[in-house]
């Protein structure tokens, strides 16, 4: 099955030869151009916002900040392990719907409470997706207006698969969950509205 749309399905039958030629030219250019980046990553926007601003984060300060963050993470992780507080309570479940590209697949996202740190704990249960070979894998991501907006993580499958994931975003900023293969121009396999 091709990942590309059928030209006739897109434009219909009621075209003059001139119109058809014109739209076929655009169709060919779109196919050749490849997919857009969809949403501009927040990290790029933030980086660009910093361009031209006074330089506060020198290399030395970045190294110190990373070292401090690592030390704090180690302390808090250690405390968490020590107290044995690793149970997750899920507050909602979202059933994902298969697209025509994966009619036999199903997936369930179990959504945990938002932690004080701002992270959402997720559990993803997937069935019916074919295992991928080598370095290929699937990705669960958040979409906004039909476009890629943020990733929640990658995964491989082997039959019924359960994966712990995480989202550190405000879910209200997005409008859908999507599963696809992690490659450019990959078709959507499962979706769910947020």
């Amino acid at each position, binding site marked *: 099955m091709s990942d590309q749309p059928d030209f006739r399905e897109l*434009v219909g039958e009621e075209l003059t030869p001139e119109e058809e030629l014109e*739209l076929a030219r655009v169709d060919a250019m779109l196919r*050749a151009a490849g997919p*857009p980046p969809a949403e501009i990553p927040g990290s790029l926007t933030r980086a660009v916002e910093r361009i*031209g601003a006074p330089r506060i984060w020198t290399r030395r300060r970045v190294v110190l900040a990373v070292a401090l963050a690592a030390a704090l993470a180690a302390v808090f992780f250690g405390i968490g392990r020590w107290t044995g507080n690793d149970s997750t309570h899920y507050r909602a479940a979202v059933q994902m719907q298969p*697209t025509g590209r994966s009619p036999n697949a199903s997936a369930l996202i179990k959504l945990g409470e938002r932690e004080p740190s701002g992270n959402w704990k997720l559990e993803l249960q997937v069935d019916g997706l074919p295992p991928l070979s080598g370095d290929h894998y699937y990705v669960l991501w958040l979409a906004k207006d039909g*476009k890629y907006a943020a990733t929640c993580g990658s995964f491989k499958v082997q039959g019924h698969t359960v994966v712990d994931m995480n989202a550190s975003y405000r879910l209200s900023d997005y409008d*859908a969950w999507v599963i696809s293969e992690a490659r450019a121009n*990959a078709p959507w396999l499962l979706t769910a509205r947020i």
Partner: protein
Amino acid sequence: MPVAMATAESDSRLIERVGRGDRDAFEQLYRRFARPVLAMAVRQLGDHGRAEDAAQETFAAVWRSARSYRSERGSASAWLYAVARHAIIDRARQRREQAAEIPDEASADAGPDQRAEESWLTWRVHAALEQLPERERAVIELAYWSGLSQAEIASYLDVPLGTVKTRTRTGLARLSGLLDEVRE
């Protein structure tokens, strides 16, 4: 004629303002060209992380060198395209230099000429897409790059199938007009 000719004057003015250190102009320029730059970088580098780095370097270079832009030498869009292309080539070169092993066989990758042509096409198409009304751009992007059928797009956007078909056809026709302006 370059794709951004309809707004070439304002693009030129924006770059000139950036050259005088105007941050508002820089943000406007970023919003206008971030997607075409990133699309071209992803297309050329095949890696989102490195493409993001190349896009960041593009806009850093725009900020640094906007003073050197001269509108009489060419359009703003072509100048930005050239800056972006250099940043992407630099990023690709860094990767090649990091590669330790020399392949036994000739690479099947596109040659420099073909890559340049592809990157120009990608730039033109995505810069033109930026000028479409959002509702038309959304259905075209979903149709070509999400793998959804027209019926699935209608369901996803919660609009009638006929609306999706109308928006797709209208958007393609509008895109054709915008790309006509690109023909050299």
